[in-house]
């Protein structure tokens, strides 16, 4: 597993800060392209706010559509990051080094975008302020803390704050490196952000402990966030398909599955875009692939439990819903695509070492998982609502409007854009972490072969 390349500090600084110090033209063009899609999404949101929710495909009883599907999806992606980073840090996994910051940053941006979705979905975004925050003292109206729609902002706010601070704390040493390599106004700005970092043993000791301590604190928060998102659905007693006690762990494992897949996609793109072949190697993607097999199979177990227990109840409404999800057009087609792209295709492929070490195939399979996982959320939300319930007086199916499709597409572009902006200002791979890995690595002679060993920190 260890196929380390020997690199000097100067070389690491040069390679990992190349884009920060001078980005190529294509980088700006790509950012411009993504910014234009983000702008289109913003226009769509503005149009929707102006005209009202009537221009979306939402109707009675399908009150939650593409935007809420996308909300759950991005919350899921956000779980990659800190979970991956935290678990790998706590277990001192050597191959974590190139992937930690990228996954933490992905967490922050996907969480920000996720949090925007219900606000946009409300149709009157400004009103969410006094739905979620206890500020409207003059009228004596306060949020009802018994609603999961209040638990959500509390959990997301905690997770977003924690994840952002996690990124900032780990960035400080690298800001010191950039400070030493810039001049003029940029030097002053980076000096301010580096806060006088010098790299004393005390600072490094605290930095190392900070990584472990914040990881340990963020892990329970990450579990709570997606559990609470699942309770948005699970506490609804009137909607079959949602009211399941297994929803919290099922959502959490699904989130981890889609999130870690997104990290695989991201590190492969980073390697290609920034020419980081020496830092993101086949062994890293291979290790992530092995991890994904385990996570994916755990997810399949929960999916099977959720689905089979629903059938086991033999309740007419529940069985009618499952029949609709699996046999009724167009949900049957979506269900098939979901099962194939979400599990069967990628996990079968990852069983082969050659696939796990082939970056093109890993990119395709990791993207495939997220196609499947997006559809999974869609199939949980829409068919469950698009059915005639005993007390329904009006019911129909759901067809997303062009406005919703634009907003969903622009969410993907915005996350990508934010990542590119971040990578222009800060290094996406922690320099000090890579340098530490180089110092701790050592070669040992076994027989006639010299192989990299690792001195583990005490």
């Amino acid at each position, binding site marked *: 597993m260890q196929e380390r390349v020997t690199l000097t500090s100067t070389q690491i600084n040069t390679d990992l800060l190349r884009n920060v110090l001078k980005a190529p033209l294509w980088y700006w063009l790509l950012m411009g392209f993504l910014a234009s899609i983000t702008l289109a999404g913003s226009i769509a949101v503005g149009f929707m706010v102006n005209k009202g929710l009537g221009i979306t495909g939402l109707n009675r009883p399908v009150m939650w559509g593409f935007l809420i599907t996308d909300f759950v999806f991005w919350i899921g992606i956000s779980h990659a990051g800190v979970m991956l980073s935290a678990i790998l840090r706590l277990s001192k996994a050597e191959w974590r080094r190139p992937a930690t910051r990228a996954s933490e940053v992905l967490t922050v941006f996907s969480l920000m975008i996720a949090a925007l979705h219900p606000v946009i979905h409300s149709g009157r975004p400004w009103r969410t302020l006094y739905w979620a925050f206890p500020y409207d003292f003059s009228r004596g109206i306060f949020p009802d803390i018994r609603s999961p729609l209040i*638990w959500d902002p509390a959990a997301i706010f905690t997770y977003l704050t924690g994840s952002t601070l996690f990124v900032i704390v780990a960035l400080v040493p690298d800001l010191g490196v950039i400070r030493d390599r810039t001049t003029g106004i940029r030097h002053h700005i980076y*000096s301010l952000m580096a*806060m006088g970092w*010098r*790299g004393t043993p005390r600072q490094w000791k*605290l*930095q190392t402990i900070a990584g472990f301590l914040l990881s340990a604190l963020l892990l329970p928060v990450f579990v709570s966030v997606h559990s609470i998102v699942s309770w948005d659905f699970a506490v609804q007693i009137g909607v079959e398909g949602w009211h399941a006690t297994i929803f919290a762990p099922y959502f959490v494992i699904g989130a981890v599955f889609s999130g870690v897949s997104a990290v695989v996609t991201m590190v492969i793109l980073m390697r290609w875009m920034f020419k980081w072949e020496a830092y993101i190697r086949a062994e890293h993607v291979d290790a992530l692939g092995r991890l994904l097999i385990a996570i994916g199979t755990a997810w399949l177990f929960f999916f099977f439990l959720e689905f089979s227990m629903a059938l086991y109840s033999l309740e007419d409404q529940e069985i009618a819903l499952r029949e609709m999800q699996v046999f009724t057009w167009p949900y049957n087609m979506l269900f098939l695509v979901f099962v194939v792209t979400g599990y069967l295709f990628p996990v079968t492929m990852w069983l082969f070492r050659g696939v796990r070490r082939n970056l093109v195939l890993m990119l395709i399979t990791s993207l495939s998982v997220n196609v499947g996982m997006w559809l999974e959320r869609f199939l949980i939300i829409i068919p469950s609502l698009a059915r005639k319930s005993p007390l329904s007086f009006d019911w129909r199916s759901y067809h997303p409007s062009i406005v919703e499709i634009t907003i969903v597409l622009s969410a993907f572009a915005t996350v990508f854009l934010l990542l590119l902006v971040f990578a222009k200002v800060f290094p996406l791979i922690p320099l000090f972490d890579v340098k530490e890995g180089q110092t701790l690595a050592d070669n040992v002679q076994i027989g006639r072969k010299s192989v990299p060993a690792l001195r583990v920190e005490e």
Partner: protein
Amino acid sequence: MVQILGLFKQAEVAANATEALQQAGYTNQQFELLTDHPYPDGAFGERVTKHRLYVFPFIGALLGFSVALLLTTATQAAYPMVTGGKPILGLPPMIIIAYEGTMLGAILFTVLGIFFESRIPNFKAGIYDPRITEGYIGITLDCATERVNAVEQVLRRAGAEDVLTKE
């Protein structure tokens, strides 16, 4: 007092230099190491770092829990809504908000603790050289003006690539 900074290319040479400084009468309380990445504790014979970071999350958690409890109790009491004859204060949802509040408090105070214990921000921290982030290891200490030459000699004899001084 004059600040001196010796720059070394290799960790072993820097470790020997700290020994040479100790033989010259300086304790490890008087010199400081500067590096571009963490080294194992005691790699240079430096002083043991003592800190109280672990206290911070507990204080933060306690404060966060208290604020969350106050907020959830106060909002329900301020707008009492009786649902199905149940008590006005709904404990299960209060636990959820209190949990998030506790964790938020713990995280915020941990980060404050990290900065406080790392002694940052500190923009007047003393002598420094950008070569440290290129992999050089810096040994810095304060000494009296009349001892500058002697200390410089110790550092150079120990293998310093360069020695800088600052009044």
